[in-house]
């Protein structure tokens, strides 16, 4: 397997970028950090398909492309379907002996935003997971439809204001809970499912390598801080992601074969979720006295989730 070893960051930085600059993502967008890291953690040939979303519309603006690999542009919901087809064709041609270089290692990767993963492409993703194609699906979770102006998606957490779930005198923003996509995908019996964050670059690169090296459908949910819709300064992308992982809003963990849960990062000092919320404009209204109870309920939710993860890790079931 031609996967590069990563001992430290200096070693990692000798890889040659296969995701080029001058794409049109916002300054400070975490999408490109995640994509770059995936493409740097392997030497294999990659076949990538991308759902419609920020990543797709801003990396392939005609006449330019930012991808140095085979890349398929497909509809809003079809990345999982397209990569399934590509993988099936690759296997068939390998069997018939019509490939130019049959021994070259090829990995199949699909990227989708949270809108196309949690909502619009959910059925297609579920189907591809069930059929058991050998691919890795990476969800870039920025918790709203950022490409079209920040509408709510089923990934948007409780209390966040979006253009279609606005905070105001009668509302504190979105009232519904965030969908737990990692558990849903683990319930498909996928061999490797994980939730990772770009600020912990090492666990993220290792997670990507594990997923690429595992045969079968793998799913990775990555936290992608959105400077435009979360409303923070572009330079603070990594700082906000730090807050997210340290406040356990986004715990970093993996689930192997649907049952073996490992927590990959335990913060030394767990910070209260207020710090994470206060750093972003989309939660500003929660600090009014009448909405204080929302913060308390968010904190309670997080504590319960963390307790559940720890107990599942111990129980190994």
């Amino acid at each position: 397997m031609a996967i590069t070893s990563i001992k430290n960051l200096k070693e990692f930085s000798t890889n040659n970028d296969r995701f080029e600059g001058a794409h049109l993502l916002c300054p400070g967008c975490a999408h490109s950090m995640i994509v770059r890291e995936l493409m740097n953690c392997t030497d294999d040939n990659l076949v990538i398909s991308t759902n419609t979303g920020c990543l797709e519309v801003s990396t392939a603006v005609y006449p330019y492309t930012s991808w140095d690999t085979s890349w398929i542009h497909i509809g809003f919901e079809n990345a999982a379907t397209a990569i399934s087809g590509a993988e099936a064709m690759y296997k068939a041609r390998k069997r018939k002996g019509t490939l130019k270089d049959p021994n070259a290692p090829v990995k199949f990767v699909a990227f989708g935003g949270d809108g196309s993963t949690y909502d619009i492409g959910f059925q297609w993703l579920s189907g591809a997971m069930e059929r058991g194609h050998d691919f890795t699906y990476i969800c870039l979770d920025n918790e709203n439809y950022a490409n079209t102006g920040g509408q709510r998606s089923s990934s948007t957490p409780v209390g966040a204001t979006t253009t279609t779930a606005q905070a105001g005198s009668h509302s504190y923003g979105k009232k519904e809970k965030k969908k737990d996509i990692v558990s849903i995908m683990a319930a498909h019996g996928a061999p490797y499912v994980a939730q990772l964050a770009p600020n912990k670059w090492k666990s993220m690169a290792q997670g990507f390598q594990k997923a690429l090296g595992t045969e079968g459908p793998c799913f990775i949910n990555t936290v992608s801080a959105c400077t435009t819709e979360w409303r923070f300064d572009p330079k603070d992308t990594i700082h906000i992601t730090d807050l997210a992982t340290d406040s356990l809003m986004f715990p970093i963990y993996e689930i192997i074969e649907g049952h073996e849960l490992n927590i990959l990062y335990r913060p030394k000092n767990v910070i209260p979720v207020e710090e994470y919320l206060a750093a972003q404009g989309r939660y500003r209204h929660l600090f009014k006295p009448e909405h204080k109870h929302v913060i308390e309920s968010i904190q309670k939710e997080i504590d319960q989730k963390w307790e559940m993860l720890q107990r599942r890790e111990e129980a190994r079931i």
Partner: protein
Amino acid sequence: MQDQDLCAAQNRGVRELGAEKLVGWDEVQQGVVINSFEGDATGIVHQKAEERIYSDFNSYTATVASWRVQKPVFNIDACIDCQNCWVWCPDSSIISRDKQMLGIDYDHCKGCGVCVEVCPTNPKSLLMFAEHTELDTALSGWPEKTKKEEK
């Protein structure tokens, strides 16, 4: 049944839409294919940016320099080559060769400032300056090492 045959024979609707060359259900109409490189691109993963032959379609040949209001300036004297800026740069704009940080690619940098935030040295080896600042002016006004506050 007969009516359906008639419709198919006349291609009703197709001609009116001006789409006589519609593909069948078992054919594929190829979309746009854009090649990132000129010629063979098999060993691209082992080539550095300066060794590759980019095609005009690759966004590497484009620039987003006009997006910047502020630009990061690199001071090699303070750098410890930790490569934090390289791993977190969203625009692949940190030029790093053989484990050493060499500078910033100002064609692709959008001036977001993430590299400055993640720089761990004291004083920082990357700082933001206004876009029009000359390199010499920026380097001559570099801040001194700040002492830790006594507790």
